[in-house]
């Protein structure tokens, strides 16, 4: 329970899935990540970059094929099923789709009760349910109702309440607002931010939208084709990214000012297949500054400044 240690420290985590015709999808490759207590780590990248799989691997919802994951000093990557089940209440997940993530046959009350009873006594259940609804801003009249009676934003609030019901220390929010109306997105992001501060939660916030992530995150990691390309403080990644992929991702963010002229750096081509990723740097096939060396060796994630690291041969100072 040392405070100096990060709450979550994953090193060289890889996740591979077999496909039906005996190939292997390299969903996540050698990603190292550490998240301090009370920190919000934003994870960005386009669809298929392995963000969701990494988030699930950190929760052991998928088994990593190699690497270690230490949660509060305990290695959960190799934990047995019984220990793991008891451990699970310490970390929770909020999904993208608030329609598929609630059992349509259960009432809000039974959904929250099921989770709360894992850590609460029967006597404290009723006040706890009221407290949970209050935390996420739902009326107490919600309890006897079914998920289909709620809107997308309200359903996401139910999902958040369910995750909070077990008093977790760490939450993976997997694109929690991508499926919602734009008008609702800000409400949910603000709610998550408030809850994070109020309850001192540690959070991994996954999104493909840099604008949403910068708002809530302390640090940001940029993923591409299963690898971590760059990590750094949120404001630095957003204002002064070092990696060519981060730059391209950033220039795709719309600027709400028609007078601002942005030089869009549009990436050509599609995301290569994670079954057969490019040799060397996985980004080289779409990279505007790639050179022949990029196909030779895989760049390590190395510091470029005090807090910022990136995986690219083209170091800002020119050294290789």
């Amino acid at each position, binding site marked *: 329970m040392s405070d100096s240690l990060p709450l979550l420290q994953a090193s060289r985590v890889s996740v591979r899935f077999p496909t039906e015709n005996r190939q292997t999808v390299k969903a996540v490759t050698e990603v190292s990540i550490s998240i301090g207590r009370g920190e919000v780590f934003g994870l960005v990248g386009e669809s298929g970059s392995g963000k969701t799989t990494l988030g699930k691997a950190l929760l052991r*919802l998928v088994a990593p094929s190699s690497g270690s994951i230490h949660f509060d000093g305990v290695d959960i990557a190799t934990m047995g099923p019984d220990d793991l089940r008891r451990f*699970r209440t310490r970390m929770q*997940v909020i999904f993208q789709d608030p329609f598929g*993530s609630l059992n349509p046959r*259960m009432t809000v009350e039974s959904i929250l009760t*099921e989770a709360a009873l*894992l850590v609460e006594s029967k006597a404290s259940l009723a006040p706890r349910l009221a407290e949970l609804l209050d935390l996420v801003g739902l009326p107490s009249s919600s309890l006897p109702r079914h998920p289909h009676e709620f809107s997308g934003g309200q359903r996401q609030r139910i999902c958040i309440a369910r995750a909070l019901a077990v008093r977790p220390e760490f939450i993976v929010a997997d694109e929690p607002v991508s499926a919602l109306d734009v008008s609702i997105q800000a409400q949910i992001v603000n709610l998550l931010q408030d809850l994070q501060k109020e309850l001192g939660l540690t959070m991994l916030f996954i999104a493909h939208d840099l604008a949403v992530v910068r708002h809530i995150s302390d640090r940001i990691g940029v993923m591409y084709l299963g690898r971590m390309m760059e990590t750094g403080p949120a404001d630095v990644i957003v204002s002064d990214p070092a990696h060519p992929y981060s730059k391209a991702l950033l220039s795709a963010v719309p600027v709400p000012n028609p007078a601002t002229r942005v030089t869009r750096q549009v990436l050509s081509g599609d995301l290569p297949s994670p079954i057969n990723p490019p040799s060397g740097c996985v980004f080289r096939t779409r990279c505007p500054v790639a050179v022949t060396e990029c196909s030779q060796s895989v760049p390590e994630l190395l510091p470029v400044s005090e807090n910022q690291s990136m995986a690219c041969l083209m170091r800002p100072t020119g050294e290789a």
Partner: protein
Amino acid sequence: MNDLRRRLVRSPVALVSVSILGLMLLLALFAPWVSPVDPGAIDIRTRLTPPSWMDGGSSDHVLGTDNVGRDVLSRIIHGARVSLFVGVATVLLGGIFGSVLGLIAGYFRGWVETVIMRLVDIQLAFPSILLAVAIMALVGPSMMNVVIVLSIATWAPFCRVARGQTLQVCNQEYITAAEALGLRDWTIMWRHVVPNIINPLIVVASFALATNIINEASLSFLGVGVPPSTPTWGGMLGEGRNYLRIAWWVSTLPGIALMLSVYSVNMLGDWLRDVYDPRIGD
């Protein structure tokens, strides 16, 4: 449930089916009290009496008598007991057994799934009525044996549907969320999977009920089903067959009862399928 009732009232076919089945069920339950005479009472003097509305009919035997003078109406009423009991019992036994296996196959996947689904394939490769006749010939006629044999012939479709539905449900994120809470597998299966796969299984059950009512009648018709001392529709069809030209009522009337029940169950099944999920059906 309220929704179901509202839709039932709006569908005349379903309403008629439910009424017929309800009537059959009442007759079956209260057979000893509602049947006019003892269904086993033999009276050779009044054998092959036609129904009361025909020439030579008598009001003592409204639907006539068979070749040894037993009352056809009483026998049809008592026969409803056997048909419905065997139908419901086999669907419950085979249905629960098959559904549980399908649930296990779809939830745990891996070699468990492979083994169970190969068993289903093997089971479905046998014509079920042939298998039933063969087993019945071996174990001998009795009500219990009929129920067991027909249950064996019933479980496979339940297993298939349960597995398919479980696979679908397990892709939903509420299952992952339940896993993330650290709930036990059996809790997840019982609380999160079963309630979401039950509707299609009810539809399968309705069709299996119709099939098994017919199968029981077939076994009795062939003389390898329920022992002949118990009146059954299938048995009556078989016995009356020889007198079809001189006394059509002996086998035709239980045939009509059989047809009405099966038709009603099928119509109800069709309706349930439309209500629950228009995409299911084979």
